[in-house]
């Protein structure tokens, strides 16, 4: 199975590195241009799985900033060359790293962060965007009868 990820970033001031996990497959990619596409080919998919897009840039902890100014945005995920996940459909769960959570606790004006995580597709924090990709994929969207 293929999974295509389409990214954007806010500006050209930095080239964030992100890590993508699906099953046993891990790919690192650096977002160099404003739009970036990555296709994971021939993934083994015979059980329910998670697709994880992860960002970990420790420089943030040496600043008083609550978030990365250069956001990495997952515009679209295309699963099995067919199913399209985007900001208005089957959005991921945002999981903040524990170190990141500790970091923002000490900074005033960080309350907005936890309030903006519902249906969020922007990696402005250190942590993960996580989608449940079931097997077969349609089970993500339709109630199954036999299981």
């Amino acid at each position, binding site marked *: *199975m293929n999974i295509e990820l389409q990214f954007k970033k806010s500006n050209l001031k930095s080239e964030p590195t992100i890590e993508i996990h699906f099953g046993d497959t891990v790919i690192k990619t650096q977002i160099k241009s404003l739009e970036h596409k990555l296709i994971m080919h021939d993934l083994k*998919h015979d059980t329910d799985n998670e697709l994880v897009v992860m960002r970990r840039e420790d420089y943030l902890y040496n600043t008083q900033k609550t978030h990365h100014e250069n956001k990495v945005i997952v515009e679209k995920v295309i699963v*099995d*060359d*067919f199913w399209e996940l985007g900001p208005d459909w089957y959005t991921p769960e945002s999981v903040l790293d524990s170190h990141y959570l500790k970091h923002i606790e000490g900074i005033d004006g960080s309350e907005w962060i936890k309030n903006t995580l519902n249906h969020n597709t922007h990696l402005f924090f250190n942590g993960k965007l996580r989608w449940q990709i079931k097997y*077969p994929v349609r089970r993500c969207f*339709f109630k199954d*009868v*036999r*299981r």
Partner: protein
Amino acid sequence: MIVYLGMPKCASSWIWENIKKNFPYKGVKEPHALVELGRPDNSVVDFSTNNWSMDSSTVRLIDKQVNKYIYVVRDPMEIANSYFAQTSTGNEKFNDFVFSLVKTKLLCFGDIIERWYNLVDKEKILIYDYNRDIFGKQEQFIKDLCARIGMNSRNKNWFLGKQINQTIGKTNYRCDDKLMTQLRYQMDKFYRITGILPYLSS
């Protein structure tokens, strides 16, 4: 093996009742094994109306045993209204309902046929339009279908003229312009890819 790809609300039960005795298969019409377990329930026939959505790995697993796929489309708003009447909880707005059907690809016939043409030999896919090819032309349709899937006869003890199941309390709602544009795009894509002339209802 014969596989009905979809769609739902396109007379699949009526078709099944007309031809099922041709198959050495005693199971249910819709085993849902391909779409929910990723493997076939039997090697003869699968008339699950959601087969259009099986994983590509499942398609590759079964394709060598499949003689023909049957794919029936219908005006997407008719399908949406029929589904809405059957499944809506009462609190849901029709527009939100159609939005879900578009996002889950159920009304995206262009995307579906594009995917299937990429996965299997397109000559194996028999395409029909419910309004053009089935409704009001049942006998002609069944004869054509039987000939194309290599069956000699329809089920003799089933009344061919029996009315196709109709959804009770079907509505005639419309959705917003944005969704209508998406649905039109999908139908145009379907007609462009298949080369079938658009069906214009009277």
